[in-house]
């Protein structure tokens, strides 16, 4: 069944219909309205002296700003990486047979989702005040070693782990949804082959759950990018928002520097969105070529995921969670 018409003019449909389309004046009206509004907005942005586009241009590439961008990226990806590891562990604990594991995981998620990230970060910042020395030992018994809190746990580490702990609670729920979306028959089959629980998780469940886990995790990463601006609560004062507002205050030009921060966040988000798009395509690709032969494991990217998609052993409609 081919649907293309041959260019030679011999139309296989002799009585092809050439009807006029339904008139859609609304589209034209909407397009004009949007154009006018966009022009007004552009005019309002460009002609308004207060934005000081010259200052924006000047400081956009300022070394302090660029450094702020770097710190923001380090915090975003660092904390997401830690959070992913924690989240997988938490999600597995949540499904474990061991009631202790289950409750620990539940309590962790309950606490970190239940309190504002800003409050948590302030708390981490106060750790050195609350506990000037930290030690490892037996409760009420001997200590093995101890250290001064503020010497080891600098603001950077506190911020990094503060963000990661909070994020892990949200990601854990995403991972859990992913694990639950895999057909229980998969576990049964693996069990019947004599595979142990750990192997079943690593070899059978997780690879299939990824398809559900990855898209909302991309979403979380974009969210994290902007959440990093809250580390001023620790206080950590290198990242983009703080860096730009500090310059703004110093030069008495807060508005152009806010614009700079916004532009940088937009740029990074755009890049992340492109990345997310490709990841989602990779993990969620439908199944078109049902009989095409693929090289063992070396087929076109997405072959495995396409196969999972086609097998229908994973459901998609798990609730997605978004950080506030």
């Amino acid at each position, binding site marked *: 069944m081919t649907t293309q018409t041959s260019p030679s003019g011999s139309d296989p449909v002799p009585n092809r219909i050439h009807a006029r389309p339904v008139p859609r004046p609304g589209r034209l009206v909407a397009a004009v309205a949007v154009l006018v509004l966009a022009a007004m907005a552009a005019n309002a942005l460009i002609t308004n002296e207060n934005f000081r586009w010259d200052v924006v241009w000047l400081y956009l590439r300022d070394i302090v700003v660029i450094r702020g961008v770097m710190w923001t990226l380090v915090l975003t990806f660092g904390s997401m990486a830690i959070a992913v590891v924690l989240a997988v562990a938490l999600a597995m604990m949540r499904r474990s047979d061991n009631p202790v594991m289950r409750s620990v995981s539940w309590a962790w998620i309950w606490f970190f989702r239940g309190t504002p990230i800003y409050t948590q970060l302030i708390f981490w910042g106060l750790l050195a005040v609350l506990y000037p020395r930290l030690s490892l030992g037996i409760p009420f018994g001997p200590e093995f070693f101890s250290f001064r809190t503020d010497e080891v746990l600098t603001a950077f580490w506190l911020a990094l782990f503060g963000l990661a702990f909070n994020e892990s609670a949200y990601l854990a729920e995403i991972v859990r949804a992913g694990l639950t979306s895999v057909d229980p028959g998969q576990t049964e089959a693996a069990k019947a*082959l004599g595979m142990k629980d750990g192997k079943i998780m690593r070899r059978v469940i997780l690879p299939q759950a990824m398809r559900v886990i990855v898209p909302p995790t991309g979403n979380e990463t974009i969210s994290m990018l902007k959440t990093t601006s809250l580390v001023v609560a620790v206080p950590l004062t290198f990242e983009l928002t703080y860096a730009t507002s500090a310059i703004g205050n110093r030069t008495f030009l807060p508005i152009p520097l806010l614009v700079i921060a916004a532009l940088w966040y937009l740029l990074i988000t755009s890049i992340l969105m492109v990345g997310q798009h490709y990841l989602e395509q990779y993990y969620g690709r439908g199944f078109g070529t049902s009989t095409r032969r693929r090289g063992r494991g070396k087929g076109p990217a997405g072959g495995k995921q396409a*196969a999972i998609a086609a097998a229908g052993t994973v459901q998609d409609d798990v609730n997605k969670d978004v950080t506030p």
Partner: protein
Amino acid sequence: MSAPTDAAAVPAASTDMVSVRAVHKVFGHGHDAVHVLKGVDLDVPRGSVTVILGPSGSGKSTLLRCINELEEITGGSVVVGGDLMGYRKDDKGVLHRLHPKVVAKQRSRIGMVFQRFHLFPHMTAVENIMEAPVQVRGLTKKAARQRALELIERVGLSDRTDHYPAQLSGGQQQRVAIARALAMDPELMLFDEPTSALDPELVGEVLSVMQDLARSGMTMIVVTHEIGFAREVADHVVFMDDGVIVESGPPRRVLDDPREQRTKDFLAHVL
């Protein structure tokens, strides 16, 4: 087959591959409890084929799942290849639940084939078959692949080695699933309605693989509605209803000359 606990668990003279004794299975607790198996006894001699028939909900799948410990039994005992499944009996006769790792090991000697195949969708046919030998037995990839290719040939799918399950027909998927189970060199194979999810024209290819397997001397327990298969391949036919075995015996006896009314009614429906 040589675990030290055997002697305590099994009568020494047993030649049975499987012996199920007074097995009860209750799902849930209290008011929600469902009593699914109500004292099942079943012996399956080595190298024999037992076909289990019975109406929907009679507990056929549950019985199979109890035999390979996918379900924990509530009462009675299951002995496979001389090993008490799921428990260890100490000198005083007290039962101790076995560690999941040991249970997994027990299971690895029993192959199971499911109605809905349950192949791993992210692995090709050959990878599906290699998975357990590599991950459970610790075989090298090379050796496992060698063996997988032999098995895939045995089920007649040499030209589908690198296809993903979604690229295979139901009958082909089920044959891969059989090869996957055989890759662990099981001493017992359980089949739970292996052809029920297949289009009629694909049933034959799966049954013929199973028939070859039976001929090779594999001990098999097959839940199926294929009366023709039961008649031709089975050594024993067991009819289950409402959690008990109502009638059992050689196929001709049970299928052509049933004694129990419930068996007669059931056969009248499926024939």
